């Protein structure tokens, strides 16, 4: 399977992806085979339905949000590069990633990019702020029916209060970073991709 997948993927394409995302060659081919198996339309791109067909994703409270994160703005298709670019956020940070000179843009799996990914899950209207309503929506998804609206509301208020520094009752990305600065995001937003 892997060899068939890699044969469909051109070497130079792999190289480019490697450069962009930091995945290894074998990881790319492995993920490409996954990509093609998800791609029921066999047109080299994935649509939302392809993702929604994954059974576990359907029961994931944030499933839809995460699926959305794979799609660039106002697009319904994602190609393999886009797919890899999103997944690259979850690559663990390795030593080689750290020793970059400041001129080179941060790798996709940097702490900031990981945080940004999470931030965008909340920020539906893309105004770079998490409003109370947006927070409440995510909360509603994540906690069960056991928690009443009132309680959710107070949690949301409290959360915003905690993070809000400039008093605009929203959470900006800077505030988001600040409030999570003690969290080991590098670890908690990484998964181990098989080699």
């Amino acid at each position, binding site marked *: 399977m892997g060899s068939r997948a890699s044969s469909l993927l051109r070497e130079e394409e792999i190289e480019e992806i490697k450069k962009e995302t930091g995945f290894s060659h074998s990881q790319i081919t492995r993920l490409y085979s996954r990509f093609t198996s998800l791609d029921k339309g066999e047109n080299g791109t994935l649509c939302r339905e392809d993702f929604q067909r994954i059974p576990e994703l359907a029961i994931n409270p944030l499933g839809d949000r995460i699926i959305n994160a794979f799609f660039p703005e106002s697009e319904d298709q994602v190609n393999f590069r886009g797919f890899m670019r999103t997944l690259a956020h979850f690559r663990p940070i390795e030593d080689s990633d750290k020793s970059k000179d400041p001129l080179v843009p941060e790798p996709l799996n940097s702490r900031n990019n990981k945080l940004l990914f999470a931030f965008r899950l909340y920020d539906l209207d893309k105004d770079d702020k998490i409003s109370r309503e947006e927070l409440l929506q995510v909360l509603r998804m994540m906690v069960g029916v056991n928690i009443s609206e009132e309680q959710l509301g107070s949690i949301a208020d409290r959360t915003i209060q905690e993070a809000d520094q400039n008093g605009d009752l929203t959470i900006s990305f800077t505030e988001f970073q600040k409030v999570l600065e003690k969290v080991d995001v590098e670890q908690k937003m990484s998964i181990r991709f*098989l080699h």
Partner: protein
Amino acid sequence: MPSARLCLPAATALLLLCALRALLASNGTSVLTELLEEAGISPLHQLTGIGSHPELQATSHPAEIQSAEDETGAQGHGIAGFEMVKWQWVHVQGPYLIAVWILVASLAKILFHLSSKVTTVVPESCLLIFLGLGLGGIVLAAAKKPEYQLDPDTFFLFLLPPIVLDSGYFMPSRLFFDNFGAILMYAVIGTLWNSFTTGTALWAVKLAGLMDPKVEADLLDFLLFGSLISAVDPVAVIAVFEEVHVNETLFIIVFGESLLNDAVTVVLYKVFNSFAGIGSENIQALDYVKGVGSIFVVSLGGTAVGIVFAFVLALISRFTKRVRIIEPLFVFLIVYLAHLTAEMVSLSSILAVTFCGLCCKKYVEANISQKSRTTVKYTMKTLASSSETIIFMLLGISAVDTSKWTWDTGLVLFTLLFTFAFRAIGVILQSWILNHFRLVPLDRIDQVVMTYGGLRGAVAFALVILLNEQTIKAKDYFVATTITVIFFTVIIQGLTIKPLVKWLKVKRSDHHKPTLNEELHERAFDHILAAVEDIVGHHGYHYWRDKWEHFDKKYLSQLLMRKSAYRIKDDIWDVYQKLNVRDAISFADQGGHMSSGKFTFASMPSRTSFSETSVTNLLRESGSAVCLDLQVIDTVRSGRDREDTVMHHVLRENLYKPRRRYQGNYSRHFIAQGEQERQEREVFQRNMRSRLESFKSTKHNVYSSKIKCRHKKEHKCQKRRNAEGTNGQVPNDKLQRNVSWHDTVPVFVEADSEDEEKDTATKVKEQEDDEGITFMARAANENLQERKFSGNFEYPQSPRIIPPSPTSAEKELPWKGDQGDLPACVSSETNKIVPIDLQYAWKQSTSSLESLVSPPGSDAVFQPRTSNFMLEERTSSAALPVPRHPIHFQFPCTAGEKSTDEDTMELIEQQELQPLMSAEGDSPSVGLVSTRWPAPFHRPSYVSALRSLVTSTQYNIKQPEKSGNIQTNL
């Protein structure tokens, strides 16, 4: 316990005796003196004679006491006939000595902590060992015979379980399972590696002739020794590491290893021990297979025993709601039974207890009451702490016993070298393998700390003492070596690990408190990672964790948690509550002067009602410390947190005061409250007031308690309705929706509808009734004098008081200024309820109330109140400008408080009126509510009580009660 010749109790007894004798001599009470002569003199003689004829005393002592007793009996009959006082040392000897030992150890702890410098440098375990050495020396010198050694049976049956339970129960389970692979590897492979390499290497040294030839041991003996010496000891590790504060991952790996390796150690020990018993030449191949198999049987079996008992415990705790008082007992009993069961069938008891504690915690904590939680926590910590203390002290004392020792420098040195070296090699090798799989690799520094943290302890000692001298001829050598290794690791490594950690700049654990954001976002991260793993199609850790959580939520929690607990179980909500409690504490610490605006006290009511404190408890208890238990603050780090204890006391001392001060600070809780939260706040205030009640006698207090009373009534009704609703299978949220805006307690309903409440409903309610009634009677008189004040409530009914003079109200309001917002808030809330009830009342033309109540003009109702309220607000905010503003900011009624312009006023009114208007229009919903008044409400006694109240207290009967009457009339 062995016979008594310990200096300390002896000295105590001596002192006591001397004092008694002196006293008796002066009094000349012949009977008593004689008695003492007969009974007491022999031990006295003996004690004083220790120096001169120790040998003789040592041997003759029990007999002597015995004969003395006999004599006493005989002579007592002959001379005195009846003995008032009898010397019965033998009778109490065992427990007495144990108690004295514990006391000595605890006193020693006090001494150690007198100087904070010493304890920051020297770990407590070291100090205790030194103390033990000292005491052992004294005992040895006094009795010329070592006493009070660490007895393996005592150790395994009594001293070890509390420590293991403590570590298992307070183990951060998420962290533990996150690192489970690594822990398991170090525990199993690491221990096997250490045992075999150390054993064989020592054997090789022996063959090389570097050891005293008197050490008679073959390969099997050395392997046996290797197995017992190589295991990292949980007691020692906890004792040292909890003071070092390395980062969580490192801690959990070392600590988890020390707990889990028990199975391997015990199995290896048993296998080699029986092999040594059989003799190496008689061992067959099958025995080896059995040996290997037993590792799995013992470890998995122990784990299974633990899990089964955890399940039983969780299930039992689900049904303890009526016997709250013995909840902690269940926890300890069942865990102990797990330990004994595992021990009985020779499975790993440490694993059983660890997993029992680990698995049951979530469910037990959810089921048992807040107080039981605290009790469990502190009892566990106390037991573990004293066990630990005793273990280390006894270790010290045991070391003095040179009769069991045979020192061989070669053996000791090589053992030290090998245990350390092979642990280092093992750690490096395993880390190298693990780093291929770990997300966050274990770096060099981690590995150094892990190597260095491999402390040996009492388990090894107990095991080596258990060796059979007949089969293991080198036992004495092994004992000496084990003691040396333990002392070396605990003392030398324990002393140096702190500087080492500092020097290596090991990532320390930052002890920051969890924030809601962290909890929330980390939860989101978990979901994200699970989703990404699904997308990638790689079923990794997150996948399985997700699956497990799903399973747990769907089946296990439902089965093991009581319904009320299950419904409110949510991590985010938990953290939210914890944060609020924390705020309350910091609030208390600051003496009620909150500087930060982050005080969302609003949730307190839901928290109090959430905590499985039964309503009965809430009512019976005046101490609020119960509700604001500190436990929640503490992160799950195991160990006897001194900080924690300190905080607990701070809390206990401080919580009482703010409770009184709160009148002035109610407004603090208004911050950050949305429209939806009013009800919650209302409940909170009611709770607070109900506690205030007993302390108050001033006008203000009457007022507030009056209100409380009224709320209580209403709450009662609500509860009734609620109980009915749930009984009748009416969905709770539907009910809530229907009543939410014209009833102040829906949140409480939601939170409060614990099944237990339902069960105890009648009882509790009766109690409530009593309270309410008594109280009302008291309140009534004063209230009549408080015209202006009650005008607040009155004006809807009697137009002449409209508008109530704000200035006069202000004059009369004792809380004007500092405490202004309490009544303000209360009135705003109550008025919101009042009209509906009133309207209803009017419609029903309740005869008893007719003269008092006039139908409210919907607009007129609010106008004056609002203005009044606003005036109060203004004065109060003028008096205390800083904290008030943010606090009121989000309170809907007060949104415009600082602005006097008409628009805002109208806006406020609109806000206030909105629900009301719709209420009036929405008659079906009112009807719906009323139909839900449960049958029990018609209880004649209740009704009559209400009626009598109504007639006697005139218009002071407040609307909720009226509504009660109305309902009963329906």
